[in-house]
């Protein structure tokens, strides 16, 4: 009878009977309550068992406790039966033990379903260490399973004392074993395996990051089976004897818990594993079926190799409540005694069977009861396996297998096989879980790092790029300028000239050179003059051009030969036009130069300016142009601003107008309603009177335009109001008369929006800071930015806050963050004390159907965000004294009464 078969009501009543008041049992709470039930039952058994004593009386106590267990329910019964069976097995010899074991099998399922809590592993481990006295904690742990068998059977759940008793029994039994020869052999084996185990443990421990209960459970099952097959094939009875209890215990999930706990490297890991194991239990229970199906399916392809799987599966199934499998499993186990299956966990998990077979063959000859060699080989293989396994922690496996070394080498591979598969999903998740919190931390640090260094380098990078670009452009400009201002020296041979082929043909080389050099000199001279003229200081009067005679003089100075050629070269220039860069000016500027004699002045068309001058000119040109462009942009921009401003003004005025219209309509409507009730009132209202009641005296002048527009709008667009003339108090007035007969739809006054609606919870020490921390507040959830319409709803928010804190005149700045999704409003107060008062008034109140929350902000951050608040010192006051945002229940009647005149 598995606890899973308990109905909700039964579970509920059971828990109640044990003195615990459970809540409703739903699908979520069910596993929790099952665990609790188990725990309570174990405690009960513990209490009863503890009184009986340990060691020799263990069996009797076990039987009594088992009886108690049986009485208390199916779940606990199996476990209690085990120790007795175990003890019997040890004493009686394997075969008997096996049968007992098989007999135990059906009982076990019930226990497994209940699972085991972490307390078990917690409690057992220290005793384990203390009790075992083996060299090295690992050794202790590894031998733990050996001793464990007895323990779990006795336990049906968690319990420190519970563990203690099995341990005592085990020890007693162990001593019993030691007495016999077989026990010596066992001890020897233990020693031999010690070294191996420690080696394998070392490798395994690193991998071991957290064992699922399933894994250890599977392993234990495997161990159990191994034991049984071992027993059938091996000659050491004592081993079997000791194994039998172990097998028994291994079958129980508590032993798996214990195993897992034993194999953890550190205490922390232990705790974690225990907790993980607890979780695993739940998972396992849920997923065991799945796994068993899976392993079954995997098994079928190669039954020979996977002989163990069906056994294990059966184990699982048996555990889950099936009985009668034991016989079959035992036979299968016998078969497996000869089949040494060594499968690499990785491969197993991937579902490849072939390799396993190969390994099997290779392993089979090695597999032998002979502990030492087999241990070595299996250890090696285990080690390689563990090294190969990537995401699985095989720490348990090596340890377990090494512990098996003492008994048989055969079964280790099988174990690893199993554990591999079973671990596959358990391990990965545990492994994932452990790195997870570390990952979170790492991620945090990485992010910080990245942001820190990234920002740093980014800043410098950008600066560097900027300077590089600037330098580049400066260099470019300089190069450009320099190119413009090139000059050729006197000695340059002129090869190219603009005069055409004729020139070449007419004159000889020397003559040609002469002419060309003459012209060049002339050109340069003129260019210099022009340059000087252009770059001159304004004081110095210079002529840009050179007179003919002066030019001739200059040329003669340069070179005596030039004199002859002046005319000819000038003729050529006339022919070619102004290509040479020299302009010939006749006496009459307007006239074109036809002949050399006409020439009165010469001028250069390509003035040669000094570099500085050139640069200066260029610079100024650029500046002027840029300024012009900027001015143009500025003008355009100004225009745009102005347009926007005008447009906004227009909008504002229109909105005001509509607002006024609505108010007028409201007034008229309410007056009409008042008239319905009170027949003394006139059904019309004078327009000026309405205006004076709606518009404050100080605003009248400002609102004059708005008012007029509103009146015009009403007369043109409102059909429910009629404008007429009436005589009131002897004077003629233009009045409005409300025409629409009151209907129910008129009563649909808009839902009070933007009002304070009460407090949700009282503010006490727990949900508000004990003292006001800063003078700045951030108020959340005051509005929904999506829902708000219009331009000035934030003013309503301002109003609301001011009115709510009307007693507190310390609010100096309010800012509504219109774009925030959360509806944030930032408030700055004169002092922290004022902020505290505002906090008390605002936090937890309902506003417009939303629950408002407040928190304190740092003052410097507030100033960063709202620099305009730095200078605010005057407390703000609500603009209207009518408390619009506090519950306006009697607004209508008040307005009507205020208008009830005439």
């Amino acid at each position, binding site marked *: 009878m598995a606890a899973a078969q308990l109905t909700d009501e039964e579970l509920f009543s059971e828990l109640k009977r044990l003195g615990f008041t*459970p809540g409703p049992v739903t699908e979520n*709470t069910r596993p929790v309550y099952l665990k609790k039930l188990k725990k309570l039952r174990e405690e009960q058994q513990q209490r009863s068992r503890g009184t009986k004593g340990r060691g020799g009386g263990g069996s009797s106590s076990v039987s009594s406790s088992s009886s108690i267990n049986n009485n208390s329910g199916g779940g606990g019964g199996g476990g209690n039966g085990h120790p007795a069976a175990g003890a019997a097995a040890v004493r009686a010899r394997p075969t008997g033990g096996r049968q007992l074991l098989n007999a135990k099998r059906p009982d076990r399922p019930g226990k497994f379903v209940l699972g085991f809590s972490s307390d078990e592993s917690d409690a057992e481990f220290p005793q384990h260490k203390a009790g075992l006295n083996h060299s090295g904690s690992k050794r202790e742990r590894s031998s733990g399973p050996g001793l464990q068998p007895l323990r779990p059977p006795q336990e049906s759940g968690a319990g420190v004392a519970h563990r203690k008793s099995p341990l005592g029994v085990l020890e007693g039994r162990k001593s019993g074993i030691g007495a016999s020869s077989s026990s010596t052999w066992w001890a020897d084996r233990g020693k031999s395996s010690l070294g191996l185990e420690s080696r394998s443990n070392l490798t395994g421990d690193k991998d071991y990051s957290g064992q699922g209960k399933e894994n250890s459970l599977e392993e234990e099952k495997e161990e159990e089976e191994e034991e049984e097959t071992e027993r059938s094939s091996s000659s050491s009875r004592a081993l079997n004897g000791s194994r039998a209890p172990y097998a028994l215990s291994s079958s129980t999930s508590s032993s798996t818990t214990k195993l897992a706990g034993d194999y953890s490297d550190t205490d922390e890991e232990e*705790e974690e594993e225990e907790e993980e194991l*607890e979780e695993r239990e739940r998972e396992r229970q849920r997923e065991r079926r799945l796994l068993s199906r899976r392993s079954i399916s995997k098994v079928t392809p190669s039954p020979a190799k996977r002989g163990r799987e069906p056994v294990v599966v059966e184990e699982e199934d048996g555990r889950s409540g099936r009985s009668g499998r034991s016989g079959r499993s035992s036979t299968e186990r016998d078969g497996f005694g000869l089949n040494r299956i060594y499968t690499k966990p990785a491969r197993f998990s991937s579902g490849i069977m072939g390799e396993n077979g190969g390994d099997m063959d290779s392993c089979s000859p090695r597999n032998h009861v002979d502990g030492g060699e087999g241990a070595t080989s299996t250890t090696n293989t285990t080690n390689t396996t563990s090294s190969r396994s990537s995401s699985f922690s095989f720490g348990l496996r090596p340890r377990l297998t090494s512990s098996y070394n003492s008994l048989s080498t055969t079964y280790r591979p099988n174990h690893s096989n199993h554990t591999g598969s079973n671990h596959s999903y358990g391990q990965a998740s545990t492994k994932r879980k452990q790195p997870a919190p570390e990952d979170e931390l790492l991620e945090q640090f990485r992010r910080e790092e990245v942001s820190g260094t990234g920002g740093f380098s980014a800043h410098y990078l950008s600066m560097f790029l900027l300077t590089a670009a600037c330098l580049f452009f400066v260099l470019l400009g300089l190069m450009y300028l320099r190119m413009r201002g090139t000059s050729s020296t006197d000695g340059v041979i002129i090869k190219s000239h603009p005069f055409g082929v004729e020139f070449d043909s007419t004159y000889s080389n020397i003559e040609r050179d002469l002419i060309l050099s003459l012209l060049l000199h002339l050109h340069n001279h003129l260019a210099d003059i022009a340059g000087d003229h252009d770059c001159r200081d304004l004081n110095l009067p210079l002529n840009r051009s050179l007179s003919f005679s002066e030019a001739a003089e200059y040329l003669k100075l340069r070179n005596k030969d030039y004199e002859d050629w002046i005319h000819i070269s000038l003729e050529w220039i006339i022919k070619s036009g102004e290509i040479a860069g020299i302009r010939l000016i006749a006496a009459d500027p307007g006239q074109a130069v036809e002949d050399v004699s006409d020439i009165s002045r010469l001028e250069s068309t390509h003035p040669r300016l000094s570099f500085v001058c050139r640069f200066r000119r260029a610079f100024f040109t650029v500046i002027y142009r840029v300024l012009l462009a900027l001015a143009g942009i500025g003008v355009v921009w100004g225009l745009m601003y102005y347009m926007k401003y005008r447009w906004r003004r227009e909008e504002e005025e229109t909105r005001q107008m509509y607002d006024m219209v609505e108010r007028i309509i409201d007034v008229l409507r309410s007056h009409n309603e008042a008239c319905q009730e009170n027949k003394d009132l006139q059904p019309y209202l004078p327009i000026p009177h309405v205006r004076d009641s709606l518009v404050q005296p100080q605003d009248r002048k400002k609102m004059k335009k708005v008012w007029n527009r509103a009146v015009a709008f009403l007369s043109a667009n409102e059909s429910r109001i009629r404008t007429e003339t009436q005589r009131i108090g002897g004077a003629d007035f233009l009045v409005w008369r409300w025409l629409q007969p009151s209907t129910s739809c008129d009563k649909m006054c808009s839902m009070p929006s933007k009002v304070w609606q009460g407090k949700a919870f009282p503010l006490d020490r727990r*949900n508000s800071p004990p003292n006001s921390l800063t003078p700045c507040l951030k108020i959340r*959830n005051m509005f929904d930015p999506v829902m708000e319409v219009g331009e000035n709803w934030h003013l309503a928010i301002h109003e609301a806050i001011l009115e709510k804190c009307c007693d507190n005149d310390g609010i100096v700045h309010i800012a509504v963050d219109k774009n925030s999704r959360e509806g944030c409003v930032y408030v700055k107060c004169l002092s922290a004390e004022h902020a505290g008062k505002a906090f008390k008034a605002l936090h937890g109140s309902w506003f417009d159907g939303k629950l408002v929350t407040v928190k304190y902000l740092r003052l410097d951050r507030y100033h960063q965000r709202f620099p305009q608040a730095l200078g605010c010192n005057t407390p703000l006051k609500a603009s209207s004294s009518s408390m619009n945002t506090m519950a306006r229940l009697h607004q209508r009647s008040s307005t009507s009464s205020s208008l009830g005149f005439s």
Partner: protein
Amino acid sequence: MSTTSQKHRDFVAEPMGDKPVTALSGIGEVLGKKLEEQGFDKAFVVLGQFLLLRKDRELFTEWLKDTSGANARQAASCSQCLTEWCDAFL
């Protein structure tokens, strides 16, 4: 008296409203994802579970460890956070 984390203080200071489950103290990204897979996507759903267990901290811790794979510390932190929240607001 154990010290409380900033997350704890933030959560307990105001009504949880529509906060996600990762706003709970002790529940980070990974656990939050796991809880969301189970259907506990908002903090108030986890609160509901806590209330179903009659505000029993040990039971809730167990449940949380089973459901999300939290370790003892995380689950204890979360259950303490919820307990205090309930004290303040329920």
